[in-house]
């Protein structure tokens, strides 16, 4: 930290001009990045973190203004540079990688041309040299067979490969600063773990400074040495990563850490901390602390003047320190865990031998496919869900978990048998009114699942109408009741979806699903588009509803930590089949399936007291249209035994009454795997203050 900073941002303000007045997105941000340093910038959506990324390269939208501030990059005043010179800085001296690799590449150009273009533009290389150098770059980001990849178009390679290529392009001119804006958010956990490893090795080798922007505390704890926490356009806490994670001081940082599900705290252990109160106002921000509206420790003095940030290595913008540092965060109301449904309760749904057939879309495709053998997105899956139980389902994207969810509500072409309330339904037909009433689904994106032209009242009352509720008085009463249950104000009934926030929309979708008092609700990645703090409140809400109605959940997510927090039992899915099935506690300690092992390792946990062992999968998920013979997982398995894995389908291994997995490896050997996450005993166990108390961990 003694070295001169590569980038020094001081007192930066950025506002967007809107019809309601200037939206003050950044208000006096200070940020130093030293040469070769990795700095993390953490914040939720709307905190201004992406604006920061664009402001540094002066690539803001036309309605943005920078009323004051200083940005000095390697001695150049970025705010004073003319546009022409900025062109030589962007891409050459500052590299950037954005969130979604699918939209960052030109779909009509071969990848090789796109990589070479960067080198021709900035390094003035001749065509042949640029291609040669491009190949070296792709090798450096560990892309196998660079020549092959360079001859491909973007849609022909996977998301992870695209992101590696984009990193290669960003590093092409050896920039002294690399800005990464949520580079792994759009990727699967296993893929993003690989990208993080790559970034760490590349960073060590090239010595570029890195500004890593994300909302995921887990990722940032794995990569950044220092982090700055941004909230409503102000840095509210800054310091060394370990220090901030272990001894977070600002109430916001503490609440944020406590809202992240930690696999060592299960459903019964505790609830997630949530934020009360409205999000910060950015048009006409109030004086004083930015977090005042939601802070449990707020006092009159927090609402006045500017909050001074004392100098030091661990800076915090809170005037109530240190007095509040020992006070615990208030946890949301904890209802007593219900005892019913814990053991073999009544069964809510039994699924037997469910198969989902791949859809054949086009006219021509139908002719061609007639000659092919059938391909299954879900290939013979069976399970049982009990009343009041949550069954978690995890797997990478493309493993068939969403197909499974949709098949259970009759949205996919499928075969198999379902047993609900003593009646047996045989697919593909067989979904009757009673079944549809008792099995409901909530989709991932509330933006897509709520009709933008229907009011909340219309949306929620429709399932009631279908199930025979008539009379506007009765309907109105039930709608109010449902809104109350999902903790939305009754006045929201007249609103339209676009007038609600993401979390509120998802609550409306939950209310709609619960309208018919279903016995099973399928949650298909319902929190993956939401901020962690909002996610925490949705998960708590689902828990409360389960306690009241003994509803069973099929909870689908790619986030293993979240599933472990929420579910009683967990199924791990790979290429259309379950590879492991067991109770939530069992799944996190050996014995586990080699795939589960890799999934566990890929999900970073923002907890300084836990140390993870690194297990990384190589290669992409094989196409479900031609799954590998034998064990589907053998192409990527790190514990492959040999020929037997390639030829024979793995046997089911019973590891206890309620723990099953499918693998050739013997029971004893499975038991001997070392655990992925280990508690590191530190002298200071004050991480307990983050609202997550140590005794909850097993």
């Amino acid at each position, binding site marked *: 930290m003694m070295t001169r900073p590569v980038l020094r941002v001081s007192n930066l303000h950025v506002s967007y001009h809107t*019809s309601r007045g200037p939206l003050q997105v950044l208000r006096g941000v200070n940020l130093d990045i030293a040469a070769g340093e990795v700095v993390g910038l953490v914040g939720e959506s709307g905190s201004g973190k992406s604006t920061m990324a664009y402001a540094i390269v002066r690539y803001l*939208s*036309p*309605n943005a203004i920078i009323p004051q501030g200083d940005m000095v990059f390697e001695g150049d005043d970025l705010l004073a540079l003319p546009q022409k010179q900025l062109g030589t800085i962007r891409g050459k001296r500052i590299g950037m990688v954005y969130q979604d690799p699918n939209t960052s590449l030109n779909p009509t150009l071969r990848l090789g041309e796109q990589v070479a273009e960067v080198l021709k533009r900035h390094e003035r290389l001749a065509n042949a040299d640029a291609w040669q150098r491009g190949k070296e770059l792709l090798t450096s980001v560990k892309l196998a067979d660079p020549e092959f990849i360079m001859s491909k178009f973007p849609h022909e390679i996977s998301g992870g490969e695209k992101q590696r290529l984009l990193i290669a392009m960003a590093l092409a001119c050896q920039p002294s600063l690399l800005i990464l804006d949520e580079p792994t958010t759009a990727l699967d956990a296993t893929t993003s773990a690989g990208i993080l490893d790559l970034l760490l090795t590349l960073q060590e080798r090239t010595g570029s400074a890195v500004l890593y922007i994300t909302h995921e505390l887990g990722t940032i704890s794995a990569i950044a040495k220092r982090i700055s926490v941004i909230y409503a356009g102000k840095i509210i806490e800054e310091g060394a990563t370990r220090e901030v994670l272990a001894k977070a001081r600002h109430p916001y940082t503490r609440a944020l850490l406590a809202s992240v599900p930690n696999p060592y705290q299960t459903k019964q252990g505790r609830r997630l901390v949530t934020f009360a109160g409205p999000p910060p106002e950015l048009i006409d921000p109030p004086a004083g602390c930015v977090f005042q509206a939601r802070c449990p420790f707020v006092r009159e003095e927090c609402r006045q003047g500017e909050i001074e940030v004392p100098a030091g290595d661990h800076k915090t913008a809170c005037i109530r320190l240190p007095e509040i540092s020992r006070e615990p965060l208030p946890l949301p109301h904890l209802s007593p865990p219900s005892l019913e449904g814990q053991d073999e309760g009544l069964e809510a749904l039994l699924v037997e031998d469910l198969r989902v057939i791949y859809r054949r879309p086009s*006219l021509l495709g139908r002719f061609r496919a007639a000659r092919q053998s059938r391909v299954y997105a879900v290939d013979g899956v069976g399970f049982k869900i009990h009343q009041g139980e949550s069954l978690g389902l995890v797997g990478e994207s493309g493993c068939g978990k969403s197909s499974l969810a*949709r098949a259970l*509500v*009759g*949205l996919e072409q499928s075969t198999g048998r379902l047993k609900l309330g003593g009646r047996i339904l045989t697919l593909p037909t067989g*979904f009757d*009114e009673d079944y*549809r009433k008792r099995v*409901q*689904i909530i*989709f*991932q*994106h509330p933006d*897509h*699942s*709520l*009709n*933008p*032209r*229907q009011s909340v009242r219309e949306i929620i009352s*429709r*399932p009631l109408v*279908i199930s025979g509720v008539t009379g506007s008085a009765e309907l109105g009463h039930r709608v109010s009741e449902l809104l109350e249950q999902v903790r939305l104000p009754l006045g929201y009934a007249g609103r*339209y*979806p*676009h*007038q609600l926030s993401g979390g509120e929309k998802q609550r409306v979708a939950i209310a*709609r699903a619960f309208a*018919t008092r279903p016995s099973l609700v399928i949650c298909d990645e319902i929190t993956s588009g939401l901020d962690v703090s909002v996610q925490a409140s949705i998960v708590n809400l689902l828990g409360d509803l389960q306690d009241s109605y003994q509803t069973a959940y099929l909870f689908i997510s790619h986030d293993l930590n979240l599933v472990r927090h929420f579910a009683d039992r967990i199924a791990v899915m790979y290429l259309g089949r379950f590879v492991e099935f067991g109770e939530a506690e069992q799944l996190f300690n050996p014995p586990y399936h080699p795939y589960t092992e890799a999934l566990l390792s890929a999900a970073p946990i923002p907890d300084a007291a836990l140390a993870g062992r690194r297990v990384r999968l190589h290669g992409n998920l094989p196409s479900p249209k031609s799954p590998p013979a034998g064990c589907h997982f053998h192409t990527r398995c790190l514990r492959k035994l040999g020929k037997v894995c390639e030829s024979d389908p793995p046997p089911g291994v019973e590891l206890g009454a309620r723990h099953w997995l499918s693998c050739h490896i013997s029971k004893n050997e499975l038991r001997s795997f070392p655990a992925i996450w280990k508690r590191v005993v530190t002298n200071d166990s004050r991480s307990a203050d983050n609202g997550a108390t140590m005794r909850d961990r097993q």
Partner: protein
Amino acid sequence: MVISTGEFSMNDFLRRSRQNPQAILGGTLLIITLIVVAFGPLLAPYNPETFHGGHRLEGPSSQFLLGTDNFGRDLLSRVLYGARPTVLFGIFTTALGVGLGTLIGVISGYLGGTFDDAVMRVMDGLMAIPNLLLALLIITALGSSSLNAGIAVGLAFMPGMARITRSTTLAIRSQDYVRAAVARGEKRGYIVTREVLPNVFAPTIVEGTIRVAFAIMLGASLSFLGLGAQPPSSEWGLMVAEGRNYLFRNPWIVIGPGIAIAVVSISFNLLGDGLRDLLNPKVERAG
């Protein structure tokens, strides 16, 4: 064209329409047009069919503001009277074409499969024939009159509208709210009318508005060819057709109705462009 499946609210709409000069200009011109359509005959200084014997083919004067035609009829009065048949023709034919096209497009798009394939190939076949030619064919079969010309132009517009609404429907059909409706066991009729149609509405309105201008010009072309309105109607296209022989002796005979056609067409076009931006809520938020 931009297909918006976005949300809509009246307040937002009014607030943003104030910031959209195109829509304001188009809207103002349109209001003037509609006033003329409604009250044109009251505003006209003369009967459009009265011959003023001594004033044939005169230029503008204080007595005849736009001059007179070869029979000595007052051109201003004729243009004012002609607004009604011309503009109503445009609106009627568009409504016919958009209505039929939307119906076919939404049903075909929602049902999909073989039905969709069959209907869309027929529509593609119709689209291969230029609008004017198709309208001429239909009039040949039906006989020439204003009503038949309207039906012909409406039918000529149908395939294009069907294509547009079908593609919008396909996008909406794969939305989760339609899936949610299917999952809770909604009937097809409800899904088409309550889930799909309201979302197809905005892009259809925009496209329809732009087509009114085309319809007016197409109707004028047909009248010009003698296949639409018949004399002594003062439909603008017919006025241009009748006046073209006297173009060199008195250009005003063509300028008046010509400008009227242009202004009305432009006003609908501007309005359509403006509506496209206004009905797409994402436009402002991005900027």
